[in-house]
């Protein structure tokens, strides 16, 4: 056991990245990785609350959910799904590049991830703004504006009877995708910092933890979307 005793200040491999309260780089990496996984568990519970609400209201208001879901733009939603899964691939490739010491590749993949993330948000913006619009001559003379704010939400014609149900769906749609988008914005911000670090050559095969941990966060945001897509866009596209 004697070699396990360390006096303060002496570390086995000297590394400028080793924080003073850790004994080894391995311990630091394990701690930091565990920290991110625990944080992701909090995110599971955070989104879980909204999913619980969705579950209940879908059970109660299936008709309204179907109608409102069909008003969502499946093409844009589908493109966004491909874009986001693609960005998961690029960030995984970026981690791989950092792991194997390829600086330029790391930077490229991280930049690509950021571009895909921004593309996602731009498409989202177009989707959101379309909900403000009036769709005249839509669904047999019913007019639909689906932003749920008081005074803006308008459902007439054949859907008037289930307007409240549709509105609940739209509130959940905006809450879920809005929270998701917020997480993406924060993610892109962090990505910018990490990309900058990569450009300055700060990552080596012995220290690339920030890239890997950012990757974990980014993949999680992707996984949330993997569930949001069918639950919001594909409630019922048949019949």
């Amino acid at each position: 056991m004697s070699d396990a005793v360390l006096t303060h200040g002496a570390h086995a491999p000297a590394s400028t990245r080793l924080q003073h309260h850790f004994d080894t780089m391995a311990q630091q990496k394990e701690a930091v990785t565990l920290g991110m996984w625990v944080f992701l568990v909090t995110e599971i519970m955070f989104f879980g609350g909204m999913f619980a609400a969705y579950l209940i209201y879908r059970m109660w208001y299936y008709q309204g959910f179907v109608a409102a879901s069909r008003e969502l733009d499946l093409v844009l939603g589908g493109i966004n799904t491909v874009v986001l899964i693609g960005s998961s691939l690029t960030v995984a490739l970026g981690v791989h590049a950092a792991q194997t010491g390829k600086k330029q590749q790391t930077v490229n993949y991280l930049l690509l991830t950021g571009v895909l993330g921004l593309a996602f948000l731009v498409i989202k913006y177009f989707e959101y703004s379309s909900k403000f619009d009036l769709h005249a001559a839509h669904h047999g003379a019913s007019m639909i504006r689906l932003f749920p704010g008081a005074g803006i939400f308008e459902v007439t014609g054949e859907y008037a009877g289930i307007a409240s149900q549709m509105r609940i769906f739209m509130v959940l749609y905006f809450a879920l995708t809005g929270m998701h988008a917020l997480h993406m914005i924060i993610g892109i911000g962090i990505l910018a910092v990490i990309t900058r670090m990569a450009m300055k050559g700060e990552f080596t095969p012995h220290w690339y933890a920030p890239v890997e941990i950012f990757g974990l966060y980014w993949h999680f945001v992707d996984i949330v979307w993997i569930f949001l897509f069918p639950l919001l866009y594909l409630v019922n596209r048949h019949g």
Partner: protein
Amino acid sequence: MNSRMDAHAHHADLGHEHVTPLGVYFGIFGALMALTAITVGVAWVNLGSLNILVALGVALVKASLVVLYFMHLKYSSKLTWIVVASGLFWMMILFGITMADYLTRGWMISPTILH
């Protein structure tokens, strides 16, 4: 054995960390694309109450691929597995016990109310 001694014994050289082959990443991406296509395609087929199960089932498979391979859970410690499992389990508790209320609404009414 405690964590610090584990760290010494098993991770003395960080280069022993698992590096996933690139082919695996591209393969998983392909699978995810295929599964997305299936998700969209199946939505147009009327399977009645099975639709939601299929949709969620496919999403679960996609999510598992991302967690296991992109997030390296497959090569992570037992503790990490427990952490992930706990998160999912707790979300299930939230859903499940809340549903215990909602699913029993409209069940047998208490006799006294009928008077």
